[in-house]
């Protein structure tokens, strides 16, 4: 099912769409307010973008520097060229420790690699410990947003879900009660976990450590209680120096939720005594994207989610309509690089309004890349025959003034004189909810000709 169909289904419940739109717009406004308080915000974005561009141009060296420093600190470093290798590496670490219970703090990379179903099939219990992630996990759904994974669920729905899975009492969606019950439930899981898996927000090459940003402290809780910590990161998470965190931590939290900084910025630089720490560095299509000149800047992304919150289409179609681990505008420029056929409707799920590019803290030209993907898709993917012929013919007509004059006249004639049922029918998607413009007696050309004759 393409994006438009899924969006149409989501739009059947207009009250919910309004609620979803408002919830995310509220986050966007919080972002605006907190960005306004930073003098030189736009300069900070420039810096963030420039540092990321530098990283991408020197990625090979930074990665090796990172590995060397990590190993010096006693961290075991693994390299995975794709999702399968990533999952196998993790499985082999778990096997070595005979681990059966895993707690995970939010990591979009493990979503991308479908780690949970892979491990569950092997009889391993994987618990997502970020509250939003846990909610969608219980509902057996993928996250619908990269920062607010359960933003599509109302608190009343969470109430019902918790009654079913955690045995809570009906509370009409009382947030305090639900959070405290979730906390009790998760505490148990933390205490019994063999291994903690975390994502990575930033990986400074000069320290060889990783930085994880959370609001719930669940990454720390997991890592400090388990014997083994596995951190999974895409190759683009590298930043050259630890001091550059001064740029990125400020950009990330403000762009994501409007907070000046996330509640926890956890630095994991070496394993605790008697414990093990692993880092899995994953490519999974990233070097390929790096090789595409028009699209490489998509790898600047620091996964703040601001482009989703601001996107008027995302807000009204929901994250699941994108059918990709990373939804919204950034997902629409990353996913075609992974599977052009499957995701070919996503670059068209945009009006190219450009708001995403304006909020992006690392200045990715998202809407321009959407335009570029459209050109690639039309060239490389089979197009619906009607759309294709209409646009191809339009190309010819618009390059020939005489033909164009004739086409314009006939179209206006039809619009003016055809009976209503011929114009407003199933084939005319425009006319489903909108009237067509009222046709005037003459077009501008004709008026101009007449005026010049008279004048």
């Amino acid at each position, binding site marked *: 099912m393409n994006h438009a169909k899924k969006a149409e289904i989501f739009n059947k419940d207009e009250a919910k769409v309004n609620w979803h739109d408002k919830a995310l717009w509220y986050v966007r406004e919080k972002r605006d307010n907190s960005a306004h308080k930073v003098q030189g915000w736009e300069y900070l974005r420039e810096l963030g973008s420039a540092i990321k561009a530098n990283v991408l141009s020197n990625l090979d060296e930074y990665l090796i520097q990172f590995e060397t420093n990590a190993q010096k600190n006693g961290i075991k470093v693994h390299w995975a060229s794709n999702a399968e290798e990533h999952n196998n590496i993790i499985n082999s670490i778990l096997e070595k420790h005979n681990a059966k219970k895993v707690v995970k703090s939010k990591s979009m990379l493990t979503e991308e690699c479908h780690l949970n179903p892979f491990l569950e099939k092997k009889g391993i219990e994987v618990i997502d410990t970020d509250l939003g992630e846990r909610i969608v996990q219980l509902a057996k759904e993928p996250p619908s947003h990269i920062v607010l994974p359960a933003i599509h669920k109302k608190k009343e729905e969470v109430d019902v879900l918790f009654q079913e899975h955690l045995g809570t009492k009906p509370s009409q969606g009382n947030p305090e009660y639900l959070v405290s019950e979730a906390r009790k439930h998760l505490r148990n899981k933390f205490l019994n976990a063999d291994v903690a898996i975390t994502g990575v927000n930033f990986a400074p090459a000069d320290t060889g450590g990783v930085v994880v940003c959370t609001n719930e402290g669940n990454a720390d809780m997991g890592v400090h209680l388990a014997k083994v910590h596995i951190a999974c990161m895409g190759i683009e998470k590298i930043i050259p120096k630890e001091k550059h965190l001064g740029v990125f931590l400020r950009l990330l939290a403000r762009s994501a939720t409007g907070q000046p900084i996330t509640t926890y910025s956890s630095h994991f630089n070496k394993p605790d005594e008697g414990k093990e720490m692993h880092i899995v560095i994953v490519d999974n299509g990233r070097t390929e994207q790096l090789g595409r000149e028009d699209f490489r800047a998509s790898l600047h992304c620091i996964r703040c989610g601001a482009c989703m919150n601001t996107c008027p289409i995302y807000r009204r179609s929901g994250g699941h309509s994108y059918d990709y681990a990373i939804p919204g505008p950034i997902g629409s420029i990353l996913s075609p690089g992974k599977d052009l056929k499957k995701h070919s409707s996503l670059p068209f799920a945009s009006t190219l309004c450009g*708001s995403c590019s304006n909020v992006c803290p690392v200045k990715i030209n998202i809407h321009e890349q959407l335009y570029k993907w459209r050109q690639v898709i039309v060239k490389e993917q089979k197009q619906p025959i009607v759309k294709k012929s209409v646009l191809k013919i339009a190309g010819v007509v618009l390059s020939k003034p005489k033909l164009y004059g004739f086409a314009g006249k006939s179209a206006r004639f039809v619009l003016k004189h055809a009976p209503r049922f011929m114009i407003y029918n199933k084939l005319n998607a425009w006319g489903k909810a909108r009237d067509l413009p009222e046709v005037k007696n003459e*077009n501008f050309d004709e008026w101009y000709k007449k005026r010049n004759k008279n004048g």
Partner: protein
Amino acid sequence: MIICSVYYIILQLFKNKQERTGHLRINNRVISYLACKKAINNNKRMKVGLFIPCYINQLYPQVGIATLELLEKLGVDVYYPKNQTCCGQPLGNSGYEEDSKGACRLFVENFKSYDYIVGPSGSCIYHVKKHFDILEQTQDVINVRNNAYELCEFIVKILGRTDLGASFPHKVGLHKSCHGLRGLKLGSCSEVMGDHYSTEEDLLNNVKGLELMSLNRKDECCGFGGTFSVFEEAISTKMGKDRINDHIDSNVEVITGADHSCLMHLEGLINRNKQPLKVMHIAEILNSQTQV
């Protein structure tokens, strides 16, 4: 020439400020200097080619008429090249950029001999400036791309005028179309930190009797998006409805804007739902002499 030199010095003085704000909000006379210099260089009066986008030509002739009359009122020599069709935007945005080259070349052919190309549609002008990079960059193509202006921008930046002597005693809501706003930078965007400015507001605030209403969401997209309006029908109409409700909640009587494609979409919804709102292109308002 002496006057020009004086203007030149003033221009230099203003340049710093201009670079800081990133927007040409300089003394009107200084801007006229730019136009004046260009005309002197060419040793003739400024020649403006009027670009009337295809859908305005066919469906909204009144917008084309208002644009032409307005420019003439402002003392500009306006020419209307008769072989024009379309800038190629609908094709490019749908992924058929290759097939649009014929239309783009024709556009350059039609407009290459003018000092400025002016059209009442931000998104078309943006397309010419931004996406004519698919053509070989001959001097003609470069000139056309550099000299293409959206109507409001041309009036404020090149002619240096904001008070056009219009009167329009109504409560007006301004729809800031995305390609004009975020593409041509006709105004500051709500996402970007910096000083507030708006080319269209500068003009509307000088219209007698006009009350510019403040909206809840100042620059949210209306959901038109060219073929998006058809292929993503559900979202497109929902976005349009939300935009219209914002205007109604803000007591707007007339929605206006510098891009009639967005207005066509909004008008389609308003008419279908019989809502108490009128839709007019900004050129029609600026050309209006309705008595207060």
